[in-house]
């Protein structure tokens, strides 16, 4: 028995980047406060000290310029990792992401490659209100051409980051602030996991069954995986065994894992910290309706942010974010 080392998600991400920078000279990092500060959420901690300002580049607050520059540098064979500090800031640079990074490969007939990893912070629950608390991965999963990665644990975060850096396509990598293990923000303890020191990859498009169960399938990602697991523990005391599926990547999406689980449990609840309408929960519900409708013993249920901006005040925000209690209550209502 060896005692496996445990890491926070932020340290796991930084370690993955570090190991890839060591392995491949073409990998470099740019973004706001990624240098001496180490990234506002710690995703690049220690890299500046090791690699210096040539490879860990603080940028001006010019997201259009530096995200577009990442696309241009990738076209030349570099492998940039570029950070959009909060996903909420997408509005100032969306053209370079949506119309260029995502589409250039297709418009080139598959000839041009853009190995860019665009990292960004998501999630609320700490009263940062409507412009600093969104998830929005559904928005980026919607446009064809971006791979979408949303880890929920340190172990997944490292393996998925190494896969992202080695991928020849644009990858958006969303880390949830409440899972990063920051000293200044409460984090879910389950996000801290054993992480092997040696580099390893986790393939995209492989969901992870974080808990097995026979009575209901709960599909989620990021923080809501942990809320679902918390709910599942409560439900188990009542004799309800929930299976919790962590999608881990939205593009590509592991439809099979979802469909197979529903065929086993006959019930589906989809939980998301993104907005309710036109998003991940609707997509998963539609897939199950198309491919496993006959297996369902109860209507599909969804829990997500109820189509309002994220409010500031604590009781308001806690009301709109799906909680373990509400997940458990919803499952109970499906068991009749």
């Amino acid at each position, binding site marked *: 028995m060896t005692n496996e080392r445990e890491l926070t998600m932020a340290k796991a991400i930084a370690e993955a980047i570090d190991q890839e920078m060591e392995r491949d000279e073409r990998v470099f990092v740019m973004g706001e406060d990624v240098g001496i500060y180490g990234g506002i959420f710690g995703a690049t901690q220690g890299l500046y000290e090791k690699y210096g300002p040539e490879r860990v580049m603080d940028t001006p607050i010019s997201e259009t310029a530096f995200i577009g520059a990442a696309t241009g540098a990738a076209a030349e064979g570099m492998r940039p990792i570029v950070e959009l500090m909060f996903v909420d800031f997408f509005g100032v640079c969306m053209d370079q992401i949506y119309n260029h990074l995502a589409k250039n490969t297709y418009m080139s007939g*598959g000839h041009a490659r853009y190995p860019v990893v665009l990292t960004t912070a998501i999630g609320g629950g700490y009263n940062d209100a409507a412009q600093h608390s969104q998830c929005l991965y559904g928005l980026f999963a919607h446009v064809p051409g971006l791979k979408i990665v949303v880890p929920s644990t340190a172990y997944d975060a490292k393996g998925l980051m190494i896969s992202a850096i080695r991928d020849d396509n644009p990858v958006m990598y969303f880390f949830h602030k409440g899972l990063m293990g920051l000293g200044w923000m409460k984090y879910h303890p389950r996000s801290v996991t054993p992480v092997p020191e040696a580099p390893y990859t986790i393939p995209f498009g492989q969901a992870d069954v974080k808990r097995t169960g026979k009575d209901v399938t709960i599909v989620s990602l990021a923080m809501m995986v942990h809320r679902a697991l918390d709910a599942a523990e409560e439900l188990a005391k009542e004799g309800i065994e929930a299976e919790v599926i962590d999608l881990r990547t939205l593009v590509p999406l592991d439809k099979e894992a979802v469909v197979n689980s529903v065929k086993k449990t006959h019930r589906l609840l989809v939980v998301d910290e993104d907005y309710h309408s036109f998003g991940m929960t609707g997509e998963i519900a539609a897939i199950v309706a198309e491919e496993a409708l006959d297996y369902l013993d109860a209507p599909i249920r969804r829990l997500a942010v109820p189509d309002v901006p994220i409010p500031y005040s604590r009781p308001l925000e806690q009301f709109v974010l799906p909680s373990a209690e509400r997940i458990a209550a919803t499952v109970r209502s499906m068991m009749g």
Partner: protein
Amino acid sequence: MNLTKEHLLAMYRQMWTIRHFEDEMAAAYMEGKTPAFDIGSGPVPGEMHLAAGQEPVAVGTCMHLRKEDTVVGTHRPHHFAIAKGIELNKLAAEIFGKESGLGKGKGGHMHLFDVEHKFSCSGIVGASFPPACGAALAAKKMGKDWVAVAFAGEGAANQGSFHEALNLAALWKLPVIFIIEDNSWAISVSKRQSTAIPDNSQRAAGYGIPGVRVDENDVLAVYEVVGEAVQRARRGEGPSLIEVKTDRLYGHFQGDPELYRPKDEVPTLRANDPILRFGKQLLEQGFATQSDLDAAREAAKADVDAAFAFARQSPYPAPESALEDVFVS
């Protein structure tokens, strides 16, 4: 001017290649669109932005560039693509939506990508500046003396991307040259109506980099000014901003009624055609005989005709190939 007769004739021929390409495209574009104009019909559907009249800026710039230098163009990209050396066949075939095109028919005339010749462009105004900075950054990181050129129209100099990119390029001393084609019109809005200062090159002062205006639509004038900027970039001395006065002989897009334009503007411009002027100059200065000029023009025409024939004869892509190439494997 250190140009040999061969270089000068090559420039002259390339200008004619561009002009013939655009004129042929204008004609092909109208096929299937008369008597009733429907933008989606005919062998060349969709929007069409032609660069006839703007040959000097493309040819005068790209004569300084090597294959490993990067060019990022605009929604009006054919002259840049041709001057950068893209194969005419693949260019024409892409615009005809054919499988043999640069992007296998997936890009179209505003979205041309040639990895080999390091050319790309975009249909979004102002989008060329950031990726050109990235190409220049990559060159610097790789220790190469390659440069990147971002072309844009004068309307694009009012986009935030222009100012963000100039600051970034100046800050990081990137080997990039920003070239503004001032053809006076942003679709129907004149530069006077849209831009607070008459000369965009003055905006270089805000970023502490050289800014030069070329005030005539003249290929040798462009060649001279861009040459200094390219040398400066190759020496590692950072970016430059150049604005070139040029003239758009066609509308913003084909089918543009051009009601905003004074009626005598285009005839006046055509009377002062930059290719004819350049030819006359070559004759007068003894760099070429009339038969040299005629041969160059005919060779250009033959190249364009062959490319259009290739494009027309090429098969369309299989419809289901629309599902391919979202990602590379």
